[in-house]
């Protein structure tokens, strides 16, 4: 009878890992290119509400962000616990919104201005009074396209 069992070497050959850095670098470049660093440092609490009838907000360069919510822990001392608006990196007053919109428009190319959208990132515990004031200012500044930024999920979770 023929013998099928070949002579096996007693130890496993080492796996060639010389291509590993190449693979890792490939992944690295992908993430480097895809990364978007956070533009603004949040000074407020910003737990967004849930909604499921959402539309994607792509073209990040055509979006202006307005944040609102209670000041976060370390700003409570100086700014209190009342909900505030944050534009760029600073707390702002309602009256500063129009100025903010105009300066944002100024920084964009003229043909893109009609496509600008204002994203309202508002904490879910904020009172509607503040949001209404923001919307009123946006109407005055004729920035009518808005988007209530939300997390995706069942709307009933907002009541928990």
């Amino acid at each position, binding site marked *: 009878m023929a013998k099928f069992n070949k002579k096996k070497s007693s130890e496993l050959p080492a796996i060639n890992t*010389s291509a590993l850095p190449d693979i890792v670098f490939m992944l690295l470049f992908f993430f480097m290119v895809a990364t978007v660093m956070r533009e603004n440092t949040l000074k407020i609490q910003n737990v967004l509400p849930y909604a*499921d009838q959402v539309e994607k907000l792509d073209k990040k360069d055509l979006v202006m962000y307005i944040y609102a919510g209670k000041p976060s822990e370390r700003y409570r001392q100086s700014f209190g616990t009342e909900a505030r608006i944050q534009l760029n990196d600073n707390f702002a007053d309602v009256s500063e919104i129009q100025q903010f919109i105009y300066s944002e428009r100024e920084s964009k190319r003229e043909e893109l201005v009609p496509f600008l959208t204002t994203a309202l990132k508002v904490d*879910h515990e904020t009172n509607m009074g503040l949001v209404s004031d923001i919307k009123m200012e946006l109407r005055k500044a004729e920035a*009518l396209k808005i988007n209530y930024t939300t997390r995706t999920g069942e709307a009933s979770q907002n009541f928990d």
Partner: protein
Amino acid sequence: MARRSTPEVNAGSLADIAFLLLIFFLVTTTIETDSGISRKLPPMQDEEVVPPVIKEKNIFQVIVNRNNDLLVEDELMELSELREAAKAFLDNGGGVGPEACDYCEGAGDPTSSDNPVKAVIMLVNDRQTEYGTYIAVQNELVGAYNELRDRTAQRMFGKSFQQMEADFNDVRYTGNKDRLKEQIEQVRDMWPQKLSEADPKN
């Protein structure tokens, strides 16, 4: 001097360094784009303009009070029932003659809306209402419109309204885009989003 061959650079730790960078970028990456409910604000109006008269039965009133309670047409309602109630109102089609609605499937109640083009949803909220509640209500109302649009789109063009919009925004879509746009407009005109927001009461 004896010529020695240059020793090979040890590249064994290269992978470690690359991994370190990789993990850093993995952690800091936020790939997902923001998403949310898109709305259009009404432009500022002159004081002199007289608001158009709307029949009481064509108005669907949704009130959210300061305790985040929902009052629909003067009755207390749970959020989970709001979407069906809004759909029933929009889809009612109680009009007769020129105001009849031939694509409505509702009850045809003469005390409810005439047709979807006339039907207005009025949302009133208090200044103390929580934003989360407001978004939940908005979400349900937009959801009602979306479901009705879907139904019509499915019946007329054999695909959902979302699919039509996605196709329209897709650069690789091979079909006729102009026709698609017309179809989208058609569905939109059949179910216009007439969502009016009153200034909050104190």
